[in-house]
């Protein structure tokens, strides 16, 4: 499904699957509040909180944004501003 849509969206980023939220949990970004994620044995029981992290080349977090509610998250301009502020 993701593969099929790649051409449509002209994505160049690497898309990683985190169906069991193992990576999300490693980062501590699983949403603990009410969520509308899929429920079922083979589906994830919860969702990540929408989050964006900027890492330097050593893998240290330079900047991050965690959405405080799912109806609001930062647009690309905020991420671009962070890139300019931290990498220039």
């Amino acid at each position, binding site marked *: 499904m993701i593969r099929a849509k790649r051409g449509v969206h002209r994505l160049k980023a690497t898309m990683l699957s985190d169906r069991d939220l193992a990576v999300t949990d490693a980062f501590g970004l699983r949403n603990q509040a009410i969520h509308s994620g899929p429920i079922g044995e083979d589906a994830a029981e919860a969702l990540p909180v929408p989050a964006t992290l900027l*890492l330097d*080349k050593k893998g240290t977090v330079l900047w991050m944004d965690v959405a405080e509610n799912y109806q609001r998250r930062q647009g690309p301009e905020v991420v671009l501003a962070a890139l300019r502020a931290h*990498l220039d």
Partner: protein
Amino acid sequence: MDEQKAVMKNAASSKTLGTALAFAALALLIATVIFWFNLANKVSIPANRTLFVFAFLLAPVLGVASFVMKARWFGSIAAVAAIIGGVFLTATIAISRQQVADNPITVGDTVPYFTAVDDQGDQFVSDMLYGTPTVIKFFRAHW
């Protein structure tokens, strides 16, 4: 006899006002929802959504008021739509807050080791992040 007529006339005008109120409630709800999704498309719904809650709740209040005034049947349909829509949208705001674990990653931390499968089916190891600055985004893949 005249008195009875006057009472009936009053009842009729109350019905008309109630019906108008029901449609006003529905119009308010629809206008607010259109504005909401306009902002949502720009990912700029304000952090403080008190005014939205006010508008979303005013619609059901007007809807109930129109029932009290015994709106005509077609007004009742608009009133019910306004009540259900307003309560539902307020509820989505009420439960929209996200809560992360006690110790999420923060600025200054190093990313934990992880592996994941990419969209080509290949294994991705977090060590591959080293050497170049990276942006990582967490989001749900489907609604």
